[in-house]
C-alpha cells in the first residue's frame, strides 16, 4: 500500500513498434553472427544479443521500466538466483581435476579401470 503507484503509465503503440522492429533486427543479427567463426565467443555474442532482446521485452513490453521499485527488485532477485544456481554449480565443475589430472571430468564411461576388465 505504501509503495503503490496510482497512475498507470501507458506506453504508446509507436514505442512497441520501435521495439518489435529492434527485436527483429537483433534476431537477424544473432543468426548472422552465428555464421561468423568467433571461436568460443560465438556463445558470448549469442547470449549477449539474447539478453539485450530479453531486456527490451522486460522493460517495454512488460512495462518494467514504468513499474514500482519493488517489481524491479523482484526481477533482479530472479536474475541473481538464476545466476547462483548456474554459477555456483558450474564453479564446482570447472575447478574439478580428476585422478589423472584431467580437468572438468564429468564422464569417462568409455574408459575402464584395470579391475573392471576381465
Amino acid at each position, binding site marked *: 500500500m505504501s509503495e503503490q503507484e496510482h497512475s498507470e503509465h501507458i506506453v504508446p503503440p509507436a514505442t512497441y513498434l520501435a521495439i518489435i522492429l529492434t527485436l527483429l533486427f537483433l534476431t537477424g543479427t544473432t543468426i548472422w553472427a552465428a555464421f561468423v567463426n568467433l571461436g568460443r565467443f560465438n556463445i558470448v555474442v549469442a547470449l549477449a544479443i539474447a539478453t539485450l532482446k530479453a531486456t527490451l521485452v522486460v522493460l517495454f513490453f512488460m512495462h518494467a521500466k514504468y513499474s514500482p521499485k519493488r517489481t524491479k527488485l523482484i526481477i533482479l532477485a530472479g536474475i541473481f538466483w538464476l545466476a547462483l544456481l548456474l554459477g555456483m554449480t558450474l564453479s564446482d565443475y570447472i575447478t574439478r581435476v*580428476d*585422478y589423472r589430472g584431467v580437468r572438468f571430468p564429468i*564422464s*569417462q564411461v568409455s574408459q575402464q*579401470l*584395470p*579391475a573392471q576388465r576381465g
Partner: protein
Amino acid sequence: MQSPLPFFPEQASNFAGNVDALFSYILVTAIFFTVLVSLLAIFAAFRYRRKNASDIGAEIHGNTALEIGWTLIPLILALGMFAWGAVIYVNYRTAPKDTLDIYVIGKQWMWKLQQPNGRKEINELHIPVNRNIKLILGSEDVIHNFYVPAFRVKMDVVPGRYNTMWFRPTKVGKYHFFCSQYCGTNHALMGGWVIVQDPAEYAAWLSGESGDVSPVSAGEKLFTQLACTTCHVSNGTGRGPSLNGVYGAKVLLADGSIVTADEGYIRESILQPKAKIVAGYQPVMPTFQGLVTEEQILNLTAYIKSLQTQPVPAKGAGVAPATSGKK
C-alpha cells in the same frame, strides 16, 4: 569392543588423530555454548518466574553492543573450525606422490579390489602398514561409498567417473569397511575388512596367490562374486532358498512335484533358473547362461555340495520337509 558405551572408534590412520582432535575442539565449543545457553535460560526461568498472574516483564528492547558481540564471537570461533577443517580436507583430497595405488570397484552389492600387481580380492583389502595408500574408486552401477571408520576416511564411488582417496594406515589390524552411500537392497551387506599387515607379511600375502585353489574354495569365492549370497542367504532369510544341505536332498517345487537335487538340477538352476522353482519362492533369479564357464559351474557345484553338511535352517530352506510334498 573395549567399553560398553564406546565413543571414539579405533584410531588407525594418519587422519584419525587429527580428525578426532578437530572433533574434540568443535565438541568443546559446542558443549560450552550448550551449557552456557542452557544455564542462562534455566537461571532466567527461575529468577524471573511469574509471581503474580498479572505481572509483566521489564522494558528492555535490545542492546546493539551485545548483538554485535554475539555475532562476532561465534563467527571467529566458526572460522577457526572452518580453517582447521579445510586444512585436513585439502590434505585428504591431495594425495602424496609415493602412493600404493589400489583400484576399487563397487557394484551392487560387493567390492572388487585390485592390488598394483593385479591380485584381486573380494570385500577384503590387504595393505601394508605405514605406506601411503591411494584408492582409485569406480562403480559399475549406482553410487556407493567406501568408508573405513577406523581411518576416518570415506569417498563416494560414482559411476561414470573415478574418485580417489588416500590414507596411511598406522596400526596393524583388521578394520571394518562399509558402503555408506545407500545403493539398493543389500546396501548394509556391502562391506568387508581392511587387513593392515606388516610390510613383510603383506609382501608374502601379495606373492602367495596359489595357482591351484580347490574347486570348493574357488566355488565359494565365485558364489560371493556372482552375488549369489545376496539371495541365497544361509540362514534362510533371503529371496532365494538357503542351499545348506540341499545337495542330494529332495526339493519341493512350486508346481507340487519333488525332485532330487543332483548335479544336473544344480546346473539347470544356474543356467535356467525359471525351469524349476522351489515352492514358496518367486522366479526372480536371473539366468547365468553365458556368464559362467563350465569350469565355474563345476566349482559352484562343488561348493554347493560342500554345504551338504551345513545346518539346515528351519524356515527358508531349499530342502523339502520330510512330511510335505505329497499330493
